[in-house]
């Protein structure tokens, strides 16, 4: 990495921002937001309006009617709840477990530390989605088919999360801190829980947020593992709406929109943190 002796306070470019910069960025924003907006339009009108040409671009008033239909077709609220349970557990679990492991790799000395960490990094390159058949067989051996724990437990292992937390802990917790705590007689757990974790809590929180979002949007694994409609997560519930003989776009979009709302709410409150989380974690080698 380029090293520079003096702190440069403003590292970004200072030249004037051109109008076409704004144009391109605005185009990117429109591209990002338009599909969501369109989903909202169809979710508030109906299939007929959605398929008329020229297309309708203003939302209608049909939201509650369609939402009601969705709730009547699949146990959607239950699905949202299931997604919440799974995603929250995974998010919180990842935050804690990755902080623990990251702490161990960053601040504790033990034999095999470097090798084990290398293994962790290597596991990030292993594509595990293609092993769904044996994964399913294992889950059924455990008797976990059609349960939420089948979704939660495998999701708790995040090599990237460990990598991320290790970075943060290494950079924010000095060795002197550790030594001072040892001298004061603290056990490793106490050091972690009372000193280290509070310091890196923001980073762990951001990690948990990303874990939450990834778990919320996971499709393939819940699709295979879950059977009964009461266990569906939000994503599978959307797919179930598509199963009717008549594909009612209004219904499908309404379901899609309902499944996205919790994330949008979350994003409204903590989106800035998520963005900051990415921006702060600049990559080193």
């Amino acid at each position, binding site marked *: 990495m380029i090293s520079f002796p003096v702190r440069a306070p403003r*590292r*970004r470019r200072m030249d004037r921002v051109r109008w076409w910069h704004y144009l391109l960025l605005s185009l*990117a924003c429109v591209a990002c*937001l338009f599909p969501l907006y369109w989903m909202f339009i169809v979710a508030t009108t109906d299939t007929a309006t959605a398929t008329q*040409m020229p297309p309708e671009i203003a939302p209608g008033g049909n939201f509650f009617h369609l939402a009601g239909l969705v709730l009547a077709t699949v146990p959607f609220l239950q699905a949202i709840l299931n997604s919440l349970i799974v995603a929250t557990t995974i998010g919180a679990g990842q935050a804690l477990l990755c902080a623990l492991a990251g702490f161990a790799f960053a601040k*504790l000395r033990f034999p095999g530390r470097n090798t084990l960490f290398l293994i962790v990094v290597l596991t990030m390159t292993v594509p595990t989605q*293609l092993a769904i*058949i044996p994964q399913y067989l294992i889950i059924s051996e455990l008797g976990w088919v059609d349960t939420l724990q089948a979704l939660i437990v495998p999701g708790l292992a995040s090599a990237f999360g460990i990598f991320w937390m290790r970075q943060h802990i290494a950079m924010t917790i000095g060795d002197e801190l550790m030594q001072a705590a040892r001298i004061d007689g603290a056990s490793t757990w106490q050091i972690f829980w009372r000193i280290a974790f509070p310091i890196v809590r923001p980073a762990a929180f951001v990690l948990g947020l990303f874990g939450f979002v990834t778990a919320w949007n996971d499709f393939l694994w819940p699709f295979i593992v879950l059977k009964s409609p009461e266990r569906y997560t939000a994503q599978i519930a959307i797919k179930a709406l598509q199963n009717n003989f008549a594909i009612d776009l209004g219904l499908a979009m309404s379901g899609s929109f309902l499944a996205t709302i919790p994330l949008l709410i979350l994003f409204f409150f903590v989106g800035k943190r998520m*963005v900051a989380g990415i921006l702060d974690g600049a990559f080193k080698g």
Partner: protein
Amino acid sequence: MRTVTTARASTPPTAPTRERARRHIAGGPVERLTPYAYTAPFFLIFAVFGLFPLLFTFYVALFDWNPIGERTFIGTDNFARMLEDPRFWNATTNTVSIWLLSTVPQLAVALLLAHLLNHARLRFATFFRMSLLVPYITSVAATAIVFAQLFDRDFGLLNWLLGLVGVEPFDFVQSTWGSHVLIATMVAWRWFGYTTLLYLASLRAIPRAIYEASAIDGAGTWQQFRHITIPALRPVIIFTVVTSTIGGLQIFTEPLLISPSAPLTCGPIRQCQTLTLFLYEQGFGQFQFGYGAAIGVALFMIIIVIASINYLLSARIHGAHR
């Protein structure tokens, strides 16, 4: 832009106290085990749900394994059949094509946008950045339904717009090319904002003075880009190339959902069936776990090979050096 916080110890430890501290760190037997205890959950879970299934896939692939019936050992027959199966090669070309179409433009656009966002005086910066992350948090299933509708032959917004300039309606879902473009668009849409932010993070770490110094030396924008920006971004570029390779070659949900009348094959001529979808179709649709596992093994090989190639290619970007 990392915040460095250090709590100060009340007194700097003297030499004998440091000695005691070191002994403390060595600790008793329980203390010695704590690092392993802290890292064990990950290894345990990964071993059970990540590594073992992968190894077991190789095993299952050697069988004719009906999930609700018999299983008989047939050695490498599944692989022989697979290599001669035109559907396998079709799925492979589909997968690679979709991956290329989704990854290359995505990374390029992300680089450009990161560059644009890297302005101190940019207004609405927070709004732009947050908007970029919206696709990432949108449900995958919902995205597939929305985009399939927007790209519909007769009733889709895109074809309507094309019609305004006199272009005949194009059946994206039914054509090979078109369906690849459709899926690639979805995948790129989902990830380009996240990638942009990743690049932006690294860009912000480049001191401005470097650019100024090079400008004084007469470097133009393009040269600055080539000799400063890209090398500085090397680690994150490597990261995004490798992760998008691994992820992009395993696409499943989007092909499954854009063709509701033939979901498992993604269309009548399997025009957009990816390897993962083919795996699922054979394993869970045709009741052939063994054959599905063989496809999984093939996919694994393909990913390893392509990811390695990509890693080597992107690692050749000359690292920044002083």
